[in-house]
Structure formats: C-alpha cells, structure tokens
C-alpha cells in the first residue's frame, strides 16, 4: 500500500509536468489548429536561461519568474517572425515549420550550452518528508505537484474571469466573430504563444532537477504531454491537463508493476491511450470539432 502511494505521488508529480505542457499545447492548438512540436524544445531553452541566471547568482525563484517573462516575450517574437508568415500555408508546410523550429531551438541550445548533462537546482529545499510510516517523499516532488496545481488554478482563473482571457477564448472559438466584436485576433494568437511558452518554462524548471538538464530532455515530456492532451481531449484545456496527470500516473505504475515496465513504459502507455482513443476519438473530455467551410 505504501509502495503504491509512493508510486502514485511520483506519477502525479511527473504527470503534473505533462499536464502543464499539455495545457501549453492546447493553448496554441485551440486558436490555430496546430500542434506546436517545438513546445518541448522551447521549454528546454527556457530552462537553460534559468540555469544561466542561477549561474550568474540570481536566486532560483526570481530566476524562474524572470525566465517566464523572457520566454513569454521570446515566444511572441517567434510567432510573429517565424510562424505568422505561414499562417495561410498548408498543414504539411506548417508541420515543416514546426520541425524547423524544433531543430533550430534544439541546435541553438546545444550551441550555447553544449550537449552535456548539467545538474539543475530544485526550487524547493532538499530532503524529504515522512507522510506516514515508511512513506517518505522528496520535497521537490511535492513542491512540483503544488506548482502544477498553482499553474492550473491561475490559468483557469485567467481564462474564466479576466477580459483578456475571455478575448483569448473568443479568438480560439471563432476568428471572424472575434474581429467583428473588436478583438485583435492577430495579437491574441501571439499572446497564446507567449502564455504557452511562459507556462512551458515552469514545466522545464520543475522537471530538470529530476532528469538533469541537457538539450535532448524536451522530447519525452512533449510526447507524454501530447499523449495526455489527446487522451483528455486536445480541445479542452483541463481535459488535456487531466490527461497529462493520468499519463504520469500510468507511466509510474507501469514502471513499478509491469515486468519490463521500465523499458516499455512509453510504449505501453501509448498503447493504452490509443485504445481509449479508438472508443472516444475526441478524447475523454474533448468535443469533436466541426469546422465551417
């Protein structure tokens, strides 16, 4: 029982990271219909920025907030300069643009920070707490879980109760009607990128103390986040986040209980998810999107 609880908490903690990444994916997907394949690389790049700031002597929390701000602005510029010119292009062209972004950011991170594994400091204190007899959990794990909760709550509040959040939801729902009520849709699309990068940075600095920091660390979380988003429903921000959590728990449980689980956890998790999608193509909480032509 203790072992199970331990796995559950570890699963929820890494699932929380996938949840944040899934939320970032949904933010761009909802308003443009495209999956940002470079989301993971962007988060890694952000994490390297945070690492550099820490190396320069900035305390970890200010470094995280500064990184979020830089990522926010950087992604807006990226959207404007690299992605926007292809707004009207075919889907395959856009996939190529995203692959290009993926490779470009990956290479840039490698060029600046070198392809070597670096330790990344936790934003929380070292050590662990005893939750009950025989069950001790690292403080970082719990802190990461709490951070996920805070990010999800803040995002929910922003979309539900602010004027800007309403405008973003409107722009995601219907570009033309949004413009007709006076919303600058073009700005909203860029803002979506900024927000996605800002919260993606949080995912990066939460996972890096666990996996260590290297330019290649973004791919696996991106795949799990995408799987989570598809499982929960990529049209529903909180469905996607919940999907991310489920994927994290699945991953932990498969590693713990299935023979050869550690080696095949990605594959087994993906197979389970695909089986669900066979029954519910739009995901557990998603809506089937119909597009007017």
């Amino acid at each position, binding site marked *: 029982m203790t072992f199970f609880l331990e796995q559950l908490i570890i699963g929820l903690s890494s699932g929380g990271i996938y949840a944040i990444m899934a939320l970032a994916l949904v933010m761009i997907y909802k308003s443009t219909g495209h999956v940002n394949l470079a989301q993971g690389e962007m988060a890694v790049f952000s994490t390297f920025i945070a690492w550099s700031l820490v190396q320069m002597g900035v305390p970890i929390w200010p470094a995280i907030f500064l990184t979020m701000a830089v990522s926010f602005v950087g992604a807006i510029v990226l959207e404007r300069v690299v992605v926007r010119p292809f707004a009207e292009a075919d889907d395959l062209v856009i996939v190529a643009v995203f692959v290009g972004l993926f490779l470009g950011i990956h290479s840039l991170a490698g060029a600046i920070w070198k392809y070597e594994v670096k330790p990344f400091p936790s934003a929380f204190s070292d050590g662990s707490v005893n939750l009950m007899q025989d069950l001790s959990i690292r403080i970082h794990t719990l802190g990461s879980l709490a951070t996920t909760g805070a990010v999800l709550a803040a995002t929910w509040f922003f979309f539900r109760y602010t004027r800007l959040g309403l405008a973003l939801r*409107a722009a995601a729902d*219907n570009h*033309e009607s*949004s413009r007709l*009520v*006076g*919303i*600058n849709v073009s700005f909203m699309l860029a803002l979506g990128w900024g927000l996605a990068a800002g919260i993606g940075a949080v995912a990066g600095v939460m996972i890096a103390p666990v996996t260590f920091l290297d330019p290649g660390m973004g791919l696996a979380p991106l795949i799990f986040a995408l799987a989570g988003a598809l499982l929960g429903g990529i049209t529903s921000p909180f469905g996607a986040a919940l999907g991310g959590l489920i994927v994290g728990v699945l991953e932990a449980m498969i590693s713990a209980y299935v023979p050869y689980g550690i080696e095949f956890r990605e594959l087994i998790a993906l197979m389970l998810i695909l089986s669900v999608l066979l029954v519910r193509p739009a995901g557990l909480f998603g809506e089937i999107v119909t597009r*007017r032509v």
Partner: protein
Amino acid sequence: MSHALELKDVSASYGHGAILHDINFDVPAGGVTALLGANGAGKTTTLRAICGMIETHGDVRLFGESITGKTPEAIARMGVAHVPDGRGTFTSLTVLDNLRLGAFSAKKRTNFRKSLDQVYDYFPRLKERSGQHAGTLSGGEQQMLAIGRALMAEPRLILLDEPSIGLAPVIVKQLFEILEQIATEAGVSMLLVEQNSNLALKLASEAALLEVGNLVARGTSEELSQNQEIARAYLGDVSDTGAQA
C-alpha cells in the same frame, strides 16, 4: 440630412474579380435601410465590405468619417455591430460570455449591466439560458443572441445579415417586432439585408436593390414596393400580398 452610413462608388472583391461594382447608397442617421436582392446579388459582400473584411475600393463613411481600408476590429470599435450571415455565435462559450464579448468594444464599460438588462428585456429567453453553451441554442435563439451581442456594444450602426433565414415564420415575426422596437426606441441606425423583402420593407424607411453586384434601384421603401416593374422582377412576394393596389 445626416447619414449614419454612406457608400460612394464602392467596389469590392474576394481577390479574383470584382463582386461589387460602384455601389452608392446610404443609411440615414437613426433610420433603417433595407438592402434587397436575389441570392448571389452581393448583399452579404456589401456588408463584408462595410466592416472591412474584404478588399474594398471607393469611399465608405460612418457618420461622415471614412472607414474604408480599416480593419474589422477597428471598425467594430468605432461603433459598427455586425450580425453576420450564419449568426457568428461563439459556440463553445456560454450565452453570457457571448454577450460579454458583444460589449468588448463598448465605449463605456460601466454600462455593461444596463445593456445586459436591456438585452434580457428584449430577449427573456437569453436570460434563462445565460449559463448554457451557445452552440446548444436553437436557430431562433442564436439569432436573438447575435442581435443581443450587437446591442451590447452600444453601437451607432447595426448591420443585419438575413436575420430571418432558416427560422419559423412565428419566430421571424417576433424578431422583427423587436428589431422595430430597437430601431424606434433606441434610435440605432440599421442596415438590413433580407431576401424576405416584404418583411424588410415594412421595417425600413429606405431601400436599395442589388442585382449581380450592381445597384439597380434605390428610394424610399414605399417607392420601391409600389414600383410594379421592380416588384414583379425582384420582389415577387410583394405583389402577392397586395402591394399592386
């Protein structure tokens, strides 16, 4: 006479060949003008040209100020509310959020509550459904929502694109009674596009008739409905209801 909207030699295209050719007409301040014509005559295109959604040449003036070439969002903020073809509902959002969006570019945000009460007053059904996803509304309710959304902006001019389309006659009758109230009580100027010319001419004081992208007639509603030639050629249903006499 002052004009809410003036179109002078307006041409418009979707990128491949012109759809509208040198259109001229106007909407008097506080008045209703009906824009009539058969399917494909260019009525919807005219509305899209006015609110900046397509490439437009010529001169479009809103209360004397030129708005040609401005973006749709800029024109919306200047007080033009468009009730588009297909109603433009934000389907995944609630009815209340749709109405909040209508007020997005209202000049005075403090008037939100007042505008909302006014809209609920016109359309009590929207109040009952305020928490519901707008995509689940019936066609008539979505049309009410589209008009309500337009009113929330406290507009100076409302562009209505075929509000009667796809609705049961009894709903259409209610809707037009409310539109008449809005025009007379609130004094909002309107440009009404309709295929149902009988209905439109009752509400409007002036009318213009489009035929394949050209303006072929304009005048008061009375003049247009009494011109037998026009009535027979374009407004078939008018003569059926006794306008010949």
